[in-house]
């Protein structure tokens, strides 16, 4: 009988042990994250960020925004970036060999003039064709770099070569940033004295179905479409219950490509962004951490829990699937390039905790789930499935998923209170109940597809078309933890 005996017991208890460990980890993470967020909010209440707007002591920030075929919105996006509130910053838009008139629109709108200058090529990038600055004083902090097409990493690297700031903010050009995002993000860099802060991440929230005007968010709503709403819930779980905890224990491996602030010198010393992967954001942080560990220099990767960045998430299953496929492939690249860190005590928390976590949970969890399900199917087909156990396990896992989602909603209510109306909360609850049954399996499926595609050697992004900020097309956002089990 297949449902008895040593192997059966082993699989069952392994699966159970794995699941319990994951659940315990999540609960600890949620508790710690909640406390840290409350502390952070209490501290922030004593800081009036508006007062720092004119401080001469803040470091110079260079915002680097790669742009490819963004002609439709580039002028608006640039305007939104230029009007951020920070004492000393520059906006570097990198035109990555666009086939449309992205560059010309910028030149016309901001009266740009090609500059004569020498650019140190400190990190690898394809040929830079020209650097443009505005002739108008009002846009003196805008720089546009024109270069041959080389991909997002390449464009970011070109921006790094040209920019003059001490810190670099790598963002996606069509994200909407809060006005004081930069002011809030520099805090970790300036307040830690015994460790060098090399990167700070921020919270990304989904702006689907929210009212955006003039680059500002006027009204926040839970999206109507199930796909988008499920992602909102997923992001809430990740950013409120998980990332904060990882930053606190200094094990954060992932700083979103949509919003991250980095110490420029450390990035340059680590070699800049890698051209060899689609998950360049995670790979860079991992490489920077590895470098600092190898140098035995105390460092930290921190995190600001305030919601600072809004982006459009995929609203169609197909596009979501491609996005998750890409995230999986990017993650596998990062894990593979740095496999030396796996349980390697020479690499501190990064090697002993963060990397194994990503390996066993972020990467392996979809595989374990699928194998578990396959095993159950086999048992069922041979008539030896213990239906009682099967349904109990499902109930066990489902109730945990709903509990975790409720926890995320609760933390939001007790802290940032993004969703106030009964309708929004009702929608979130419905999504929380349906998500483990409908959304999660799709995510697992996309991750498995990602694994298969990776093993078959597929590279690249697939097609992502732009339709404007208020239309729902995906932006290349960064991998977030994909599993709740």
């Amino acid at each position, binding site marked *: 009988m297949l449902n008895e005996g040593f192997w059966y017991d082993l699989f*069952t208890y392994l699966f*159970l042990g794995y699941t319990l460990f994951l659940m315990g980890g999540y609960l600890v993470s949620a508790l710690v994250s909640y406390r840290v967020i409350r502390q952070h909010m*209490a*501290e922030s*209440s*004593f*800081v009036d960020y508006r*007062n*720092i707007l*004119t*401080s*001469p*002591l*803040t470091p110079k920030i260079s915002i680097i925004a790669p742009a490819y075929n963004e002609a439709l919105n580039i002028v608006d996006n640039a305007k939104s970036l230029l009007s951020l509130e920070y004492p000393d910053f520059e906006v570097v838009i990198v035109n990555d060999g666009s086939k449309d008139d992205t560059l010309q629109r910028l030149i016309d709108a901001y009266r740009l*003039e*090609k*500059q*004569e*200058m*020498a*650019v*140190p*090529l*400190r990190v690898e990038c394809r*040929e*830079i064709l*020209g*650097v443009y600055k505005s002739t108008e004083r009002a846009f003196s902090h805008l720089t546009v770099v024109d270069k041959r097409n080389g991909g997002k990493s390449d464009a970011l690297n070109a921006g790094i*070569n040209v920019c003059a700031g001490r810190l670099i903010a790598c963002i996606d050009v069509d994200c909407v940033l809060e006005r004081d995002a930069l002011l809030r993000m520099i*805090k970790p*860099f*300036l*307040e*830690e*004295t015994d460790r060098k802060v090399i990167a700070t991440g921020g919270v990304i929230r989904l702006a689907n179905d929210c009212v955006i005007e003039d680059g500002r968010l006027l009204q926040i709503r839970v999206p109507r479409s199930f796909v988008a709403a499920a992602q909102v819930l997923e992001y809430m779980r990740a950013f409120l219950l998980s990332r904060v905890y990882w930053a606190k224990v200094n094990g954060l491996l992932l700083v979103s490509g949509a919003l991250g602030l980095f110490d420029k010198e450390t990035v340059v010393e680590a070699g800049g962004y890698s051209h060899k992967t689609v998950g360049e954001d995670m790979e860079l942080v991992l490489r920077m951490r590895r470098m600092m560990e190898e140098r035995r220099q105390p460092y930290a990767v921190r995190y600001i829990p305030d919601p600072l960045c809004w982006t459009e998430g995929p609203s169609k299953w197909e596009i979501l699937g491609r996005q998750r496929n890409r995230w999986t492939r990017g993650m596998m690249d990062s894990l593979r390039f740095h496999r030396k860190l796996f349980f390697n005590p020479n690499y501190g928390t990064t090697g002993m905790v963060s990397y194994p976590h990503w390996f066993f949970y972020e990467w392996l969890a979809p595989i374990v789930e699928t194998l578990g399900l396959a095993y159950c199917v086999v048992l069922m087909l041979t008539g030896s499935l*213990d239906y*009682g*156990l099967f349904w*109990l*396990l499902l*109930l*066990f896992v489902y*109730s*945990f998923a*709903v*509990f975790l989602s*409720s*926890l995320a*909603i*609760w933390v939001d*209510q*007790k802290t940032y209170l993004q969703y*106030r109306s*009964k309708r929004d*909360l009702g929608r979130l*609850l419905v999504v929380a109940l349906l998500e483990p049954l409908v959304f999660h399996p799709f995510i697992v499926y996309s991750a498995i597809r990602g694994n298969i595609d990776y093993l078959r050697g597929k590279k690249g992004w697939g097609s992502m078309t732009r339709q404007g900020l208020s239309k729902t097309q995906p932006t290349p956002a960064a991998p977030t933890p994909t599993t709740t089990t």
Partner: protein
Amino acid sequence: MQSILDWWNWTDGQDHLYAFLLVMAVLYVLGTVLLLGYIWLLMLRRNRRSAWSAALRARLEDDIATWMAGDLSTWELSNRLHVEVRTDERARPILADVIYATSKLLREESQSQLRDLFRQMSLDQIVLQKLKSIKWHEQAYGCRVAGQLQLKEFLSLIRARTRSWRGVLRVEAITALVAMGDQSGLEKIAEDNHHLPDWEQVLLLERFKILNSHELPPYENWLNSSRPDWVLFGIRLCRHYNRFDKIADLGPLLRSGDSRVQTAVLGTFEAQGDPELVPVLLDYLPYATGGCLIRTLNLLADLMLRSEAMPVLLDYADHADPLVRLTALEALRRLGLPAPELHLLTKSRSDLALLTAH
């Protein structure tokens, strides 16, 4: 309890497993229901908002505003406030906050009557409670109120708070000392405290900006501190307040060994732009590295005579660090070195892209 143990002993592993899973599932479901109930309660409470305290606050604000306008005599106000406080002790902290908020809005001439009122209503006891609380944010609030209302009797408590490990509390305490004009305490601060991170310096500078010059702390003395963070802050304040008379003191700090201090001194020199600084810079040049070296080269290019600057820069056009080379080249270009000669210097370098305007 006994029956559970009996059941446990009589059933086998599989039933144990079932029971375990069932119990966990039930716990999770219960947890979910509790959380959702809590959320519902939060919503209700938010909608009703603390009606009592909002109404009380509105009343107190009205009374104080009328009194400040002169339509209510102090005696009448006093009576009304005593009534409020007697009816409910919780009114006291709210009253303290209202008076504090009013004080923040007004300038010096209106302050004394507010301070008298504050003491008359024994609200300084509230501040004492806050300063002695175990919660850091209550202590921070206490510092703010004490500083604003000049409650000098709490000076020693606040001085102790400047040694807290928590940055926010330190900032509030230092601000309060400055507001109360505790010059001697502020002189000692630079020796007692080990750290003053940049973030706190940013916050403090902003608070100092709104003060009059005689109210500022003795920052020139901090230049002599043994703690580099405080030296750094002193330099930055000198720069901000254009204390160019202190330039002579800053020169020796260039050899202090702390790169942040060196950077801050160079920043001050950049702001001042006095050719008399050239000898100091030339002395420092051989010891400068990294960002400081780059800034020193730029400063020399700006301050020295062209004929004297060129040989110095040409030395560095061959430096190992590409950024230093770049700086020297850009400076030479600014000074008018012709393009062909510049290209000659960069010809063998592959790590620079020389972009032209054509």
